[in-house]
């Protein structure tokens, strides 16, 4: 690779950084003021592209410069209007909700928007016209660079400068900065904060829409854009520092450059090995983030966030002290276990019961392991599927490549998950709240991408086929009983640990990190080990899953599965120990029966999440307890 070649790749990176910067800046801006991490921000980006394709095509396509640019701008503005509508209709209702609920609500929105886009524009990728006047190329460093890319390189710093002036020099900017700290006081000074919030949300949405609309001449509109851009934007925002516009720009550049250079370097021989750097882009992104987080936990330009005044002060009801199960509950638990043991005898009457039973049990272990860190640990992982997937792939790949027997493969599942959880957890526990959520989500996406891209080993999108249990577990009833036993032991162990000093230390670190450190608890270490433990148990669930299905695909690591876990925990109630068990059972049954009935089940799931967040914030078990006032027995 020549120097000119690398320099040219660097320029290409600059062009890619532009759209990423717009999206990340908008995300960061909205977070700064509303303290909501808007997962649906990627949807606004995607809508920006789709709307631009439609408008630009309708207004004369590539032949008409005025039509093209007004179409792009109109798409950005429409995204702004949609954003403002989202703020007014939905987000205003959840500003006082716990941040986890806010994340879920915006995720629900993302699901709904995605299905709405599918319904409006169809599943096919849509190509937009080239930009009039910029469809050619200019020669730089002896190579052809698309003029449009050159245009993008210039437009990002221009927007950055504009934003900087607005925020540093105008009263509006000062008010926005004031609102990030104390919105209630701003109201008492005569500022209409509701309007200010809507304005900021609209501005952030315009930025996302603009980022998407400008992509119209670069890539086809497709339904995967929302998720892929929001993951990248998360990494950018974490690296740049939440709330810093300049940070977003620098980080977008950094990430885009590192990726571009990896592609530019291509295949390099090292001591006889050929390393293909262009496949390492995601790993490189991860490395950049890891290095930045070690050096500066709040990002390059970020600062520790202070609690915002007038925000979530009506926090969720505090959790009661945990108590061992009452006699009645213990008997009830045993009775349920006994009934489940007898389930195989009903197989003749209900042949589907055992299949469903295995699904439900796997869901229960998945949810229980997530609840372990999320409830008592206070670490809401948005990427718990990573450890499920590592477990599943750990087992499946052993079978595929080494023809390992089932016992060995099942034992390897938690080991693979534990290694991943130890690595990712080490970074994750350094952050908290929404930062932790974003980081765990980004890690899960990275695992997903590696599995997806490393086709030679993992089978890529086809996954791994033919992982069947060996005798005697090749009979469904036997496999069901194995699953029941493993899940019961797993759930019981997690529960036992919660009552032991380690579980208390984890809760102590959640309740009051200051106090916990002051009495000598290494809170990060305790939370790290807890994270690894939860990942390990989740890996067990993944291993069982692989053999239950006979084949696995990257879907086991998808964000959708991570979110399913969150919904299960919240459905049951995060503040109770039995909540995740109930939530997982209800959810798994629902999914089996209802979700497969409709093509738009994403939207349906989104709707369920919204109802849950808005109407049952303490979950089914929480609502039941409130009804019966017997919380301390569970």
């Amino acid at each position, binding site marked *: 690779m020549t120097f000119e070649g690398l320099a040219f790749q660097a320029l290409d990176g600059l062009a890619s950084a532009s759209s990423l910067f717009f999206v990340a800046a908008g995300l960061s801006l909205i977070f700064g003021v509303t303290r909501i991490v808007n997962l649906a921000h990627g949807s606004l980006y995607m809508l920006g592209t789709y709307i631009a394709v439609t408008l630009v095509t309708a207004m004369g396509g590539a032949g008409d410069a005025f039509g093209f640019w007004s179409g792009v701008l109109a798409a950005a503005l429409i995204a702004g209007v949609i954003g403002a509508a989202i703020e007014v209709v939905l987000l205003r209702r959840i500003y006082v909700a716990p941040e986890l609920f806010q994340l879920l609500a915006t995720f629900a929105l993302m699901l709904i928007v995605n299905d709405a886009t599918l319904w409006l524009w169809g599943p096919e990728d849509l190509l937009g016209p080239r930009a009039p006047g910029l469809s050619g190329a200019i020669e730089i460093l002896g190579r052809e660079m698309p003029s449009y890319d050159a245009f993008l390189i210039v437009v990002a710093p221009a927007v950055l400068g504009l934003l900087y002036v607005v925020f540093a020099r105008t009263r509006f900017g000062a008010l926005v900065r004031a609102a990030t700290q*104390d919105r209630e006081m*701003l*109201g*008492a*000074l*005569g500022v209409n904060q509701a309007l200010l919030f809507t304005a900021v949300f609209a501005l952030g949405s315009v930025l996302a829409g603009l980022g998407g609309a400008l992509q119209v001449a670069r890539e086809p509109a497709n339904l995967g854009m929302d998720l892929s851009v929001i993951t990248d934007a998360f990494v950018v925002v974490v690296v740049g520092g939440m709330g810093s516009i300049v940070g977003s720009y620098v980080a977008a550049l950094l990430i885009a450059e590192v990726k571009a250079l990896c592609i530019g370097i291509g295949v390099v021989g090292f001591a006889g090995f050929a390393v293909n750097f262009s496949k390492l882009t995601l790993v490189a992104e991860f490395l950049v983030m890891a290095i930045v987080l070690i050096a500066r936990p709040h990002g390059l330009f970020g600062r520790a966030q202070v609690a915002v005044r007038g925000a979530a002060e009506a926090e969720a009801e505090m959790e009661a002290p945990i108590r061992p199960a009452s006699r009645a509950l213990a008997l009830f638990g045993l009775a349920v276990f006994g009934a489940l043991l007898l389930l195989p005898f009903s197989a003749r009457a209900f042949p589907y019961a055992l299949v469903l039973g295995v699904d439900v049990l796997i869901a229960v272990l998945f949810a229980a392991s997530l609840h372990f860190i999320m409830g008592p640990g206070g670490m809401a992982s948005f990427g718990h599927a990573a450890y499920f997937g590592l477990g599943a792939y750990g087992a499946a790949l052993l079978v595929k490549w080494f023809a390992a027997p089932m016992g060995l493969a099942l034992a390897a599942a938690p080991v693979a998950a534990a290694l991943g959880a130890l690595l990712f957890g080490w970074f994750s526990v350094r952050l908290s709240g929404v930062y932790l959520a974003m980081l765990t989500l980004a890690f899960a996406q990275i695992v997903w991408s590696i599995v997806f891209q490393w086709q030679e080993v993992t089978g890529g999108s086809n996954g791994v086929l033919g992982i069947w249990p060996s005798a005697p577990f090749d009979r469904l009833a036997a496999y069901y009983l194995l699953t029941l036993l493993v899940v019961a032991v797993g759930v019981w162990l997690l529960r036992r640990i919660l009552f032991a000093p380690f579980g208390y230390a984890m809760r102590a670190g959640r309740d009051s990190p200051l106090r916990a450190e002051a009495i000598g608890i290494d809170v990060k270490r305790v939370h790290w080990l807890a994270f690894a433990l939860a990942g390990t148990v989740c890996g067990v669930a993944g291993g069982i899953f692989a053999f239950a299905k006979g084949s696995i695909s990257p879907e086991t690591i998808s964000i959708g599965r991570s979110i399913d876990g969150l919904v299960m925990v919240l459905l049951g109630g995060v503040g109770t120990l039995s909540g995740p068990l109930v939530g997982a059972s209800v959810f798994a049954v629902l999914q089996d029966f209802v979700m497969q009935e409709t093509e738009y089940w994403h939207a349906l799931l989104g709707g369920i999440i919204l109802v849950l967040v808005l109407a049952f914030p303490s979950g089914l078990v929480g609502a039941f307890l409130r009804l019966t006032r017997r919380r301390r027995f569970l």
Partner: protein
Amino acid sequence: MSAPPATPKPPAPPALAVGHLDAWYGAAQILRGVTFTVGQGEVVALMGRNGAGKSTTMKAVMGLLPRRRGAVRVYGRAVSGLKPFEIARLGVGYTPEDRRIFSDLTVLENLDAGRQKPRRFADGTPAPTWTREDLFKLFPNLAELRHRLGGRMSGGEQQMLTVARTLMGNPLVLLLDEPSEGVAPVIVEAMADTILELKNRGLSILLSEQNVGFAEIVSDRAYLLEKGQIRWAGTMAELTENADVQRSYLTL
């Protein structure tokens, strides 16, 4: 008391009239039927022990509590259903007990955040308006710090800034929540001088205070709160003379 006007007019409504005010934090009722008035140009002290409901009363007047009930009138206009920013725009200025300076904003930006249009009193005469330069004259310390970030100021300086920021809104009625709390005695003295100056310029002031020493220097009348109810009302002179009342509602 000022001299009676030359021509008799219908009695003007007080600057602030609060009637039967109830307020809640969550499920707990904090205020029970609080009733009081602040006349035009008057300084009224709302006194009582910690937790008696002084700050809650101010927040309830300002519309900062989600759940409140009762009548709040500003120059006769009912404001109890309005949002905080709407109440502020009617000329009610609020300085909170914990100051709530915007720490990432400079002194100048903090002042700009409070800026509102000029106003007139109920009788049509122009009310005092404040520019940044006026306030730098009133609080000379702030003038030297104009580019300092709010978060980098001492508590006493922040206390001045929070009052100055409220004055930028050209208020007619001022709610001062514990201006003497948690600052050094020298600052307390400066604060007392400022309050008397504002009274001279015609502002009507409601002051929450625990310190009788401070209240007696600046206030005309006082109301004593206990457990969210008004237990005593009278002039400041009556209060300073009445050791029994002080013992019952203030001394610990």
